[in-house]
């Protein structure tokens, strides 16, 4: 169906006015899972921010008198073999997780977007070198590089952040480069060149705004992915080192203690899972909302619909 709205020439109705953001929000709101996910993510972020102040204990506080206590009023999530209050551990873990995963994802994003833009716009040798590196990063899980980096740098917040963030750039670079390449030879950029816009002007006003949504969606998928990687490092004993609490440590330890003290597993694992699921719902909702082409029967009916499936595919790397 052709997309026809107002009429031209005679009696033109003023086109309906919506900012693109409000349109996106309207689409997002329709997705109830995404809305619920957003609430959980919001609570998670708030708890992560204020956690250290509201936590009953410091993360390093131990009390052997109360080791391995089941959940009670005093210790709602119970305690572990060192007498750590698990509620405090969870709250501190959130703080650490937010710092590491948002930091790492942001780092990946910045490196990736810069390299991707560069490769896409410049082409030639720069493009070739960057894309060979991207191919390399795609061939081998970035997690392996993270392992080496952690061993080389250490087991506190910043090294772990770097170890997760540095290998993550390739996703963003490939995404941005692909989008830029698609636009570089397209008529939009040609038109801008035709009225004399410089390369920088085109990059700033024509390319970046058009990749921003996709990059933002990739970031929304990237954060929970990095959360998994962070916990995964702990599972193989290479994440944040105790006493720094992390979800990965708690889950890995719960595995060995699950027979005797199952509450050590219930709360951290459940909360971790809920956070991950919520992030994914949010990311998925954002993808639908920010990509109007996915809106079936929407006004832009004639665009091709390849992008969505392709991105779903790259998420196979989850």
């Amino acid at each position, binding site marked *: *169906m052709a997309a*026809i*709205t107002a009429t031209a020439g005679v009696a033109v109705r003023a086109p309906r006015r919506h900012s693109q953001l409000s349109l996106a929000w309207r689409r997002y709101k329709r997705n109830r899972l995404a809305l619920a996910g957003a609430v959980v993510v919001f609570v998670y972020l708030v708890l992560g921010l204020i956690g250290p102040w509201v936590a009953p204990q410091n993360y390093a506080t131990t009390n052997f008198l109360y080791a391995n206590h089941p959940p009670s009023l005093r210790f709602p999530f119970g305690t572990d073999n060192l007498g750590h209050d698990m509620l405090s551990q969870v709250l501190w873990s959130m703080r650490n997780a937010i710092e590491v995963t948002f930091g790492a994802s942001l780092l990946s994003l910045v490196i990736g977007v810069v390299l991707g833009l560069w490769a896409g716009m410049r082409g030639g040798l720069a493009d070739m070198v960057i894309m060979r590196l991207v191919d390399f990063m795609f061939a081998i899980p970035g997690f392996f590089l993270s392992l080496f980096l952690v061993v080389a740098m250490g087991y506190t917040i910043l090294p772990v952040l770097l170890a997760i963030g540095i290998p993550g750039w390739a996703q963003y670079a490939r995404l941005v480069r692909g989008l830029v390449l698609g636009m570089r030879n397209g008529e939009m950029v040609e038109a801008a060149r035709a009225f004399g816009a410089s390369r920088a002007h085109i990059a700033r006003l024509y390319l970046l705004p058009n990749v921003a949504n996709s990059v933002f969606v990739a970031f929304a998928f990237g954060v929970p992915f990095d959360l998994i990687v962070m916990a995964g490092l702990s599972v193989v004993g290479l994440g944040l080192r105790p006493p720094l609490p992390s979800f990965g440590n708690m889950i890995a330890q719960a595995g060995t203690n699950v027979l005797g003290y199952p509450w050590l597993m219930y709360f951290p694992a459940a909360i971790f899972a809920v956070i991950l699921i919520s992030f994914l719902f949010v990311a998925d909702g954002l993808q639908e909302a920010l990509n109007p082409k996915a809106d079936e029967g929407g006004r832009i009916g004639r665009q091709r619909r390849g992008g969505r499936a392709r991105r779903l595919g790259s998420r196979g790397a989850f």
Partner: protein
Amino acid sequence: MAEDLLSVEDLRVEFERSDGTVYAVNGVDFSVAPGETLGIVGESGSGKSVSVLSIMGLLRGNGQVTGGTAKFMGKDLLKLRRRQLEDIRGRDIGMIFQDPMSSLNPTMRIGDQIMEGMLAHQYTNHKGAFNRALQLLEEVGIPEARARFRSYPHEFSGGMRQRAMIAMAVACEPQLLIADEPTTAVDVTVQTQILVLLRELQQKQRMSVVLITHDFGVATNVCDRIIVMYAGKVMESAPLADFLARPAHPYTIGLRRSVIEVGTQAHQLKAIPGVATTLMAPPHNCPFAERCQWVTDLCRAEVPELRPLSDGHFVACHRAEEVLAEAGANGAERAAPRGDGASASARSRGAWSQAGDEATLHA
């Protein structure tokens, strides 16, 4: 007159969209006589493709037939079960589409795609289907049929793909062939080849053809009768002779004066103001009223029904008689010699009519 092969009455189709219901087809009537070529002309969004897709049960997404009948050889296609419809599709009614590249399965050999329909309808056995596929490839003008049988669509040129599509559509010798913009995606020189091929096959297999097109030149050169659609309604329906000589709907005349062809002079062109609108509510007045120079209060208040003007000539306009009277005068003006003798177009036009006199005329 023989019984109609296909007869569609009061067809209605709606699409559910996030921003509301689109009324794509709003009570369309037409019929196809055996051996006839019917042209359905209209701009994008006029509902011409949707009409035929809906009677074939090929509507996509959220489109839905909300009313009407489509009698084909006594059966209402809109009431058939999927199985029964599958039996008719491809065997009694063949279809070709606009873009032959996307309409062919990219991972299936051309020959297999041609054979598939014959085998599904048990038109013949495997050996027979193979031989007929080869024969069809030759008939539609694809050289080296045996080698081409094993090709994939991407190895064909645009024109050959459309030929292969035609071979597939006529494989089971259908009584009716529906061609949905069959030449829109091909070059002009190939367009004529495709139309000639369609005409040959039609005569050979004694098919009826429904040709959907936005191109007046194509429709008037190929069809026996022409329907003009706008906003999901039939505006005018006339035999070719009437259509050319006595167009009675302002939209038809407007379209006619929008056609740019070799020899057209600027002063002969006249744009229809505005653009077609998508109906988000059932029509409550003449959908063309907004763009019509003949518009009256009546047009804005009441939907004009399709009514007979003369034998076989139907029009949906409150003021058809007046329009016809005036347009007749305009038509005469149009037919008069153009400009001065030096004009190139006059010369080329002369050559055309000269050729027309020499050639055998179509019935």
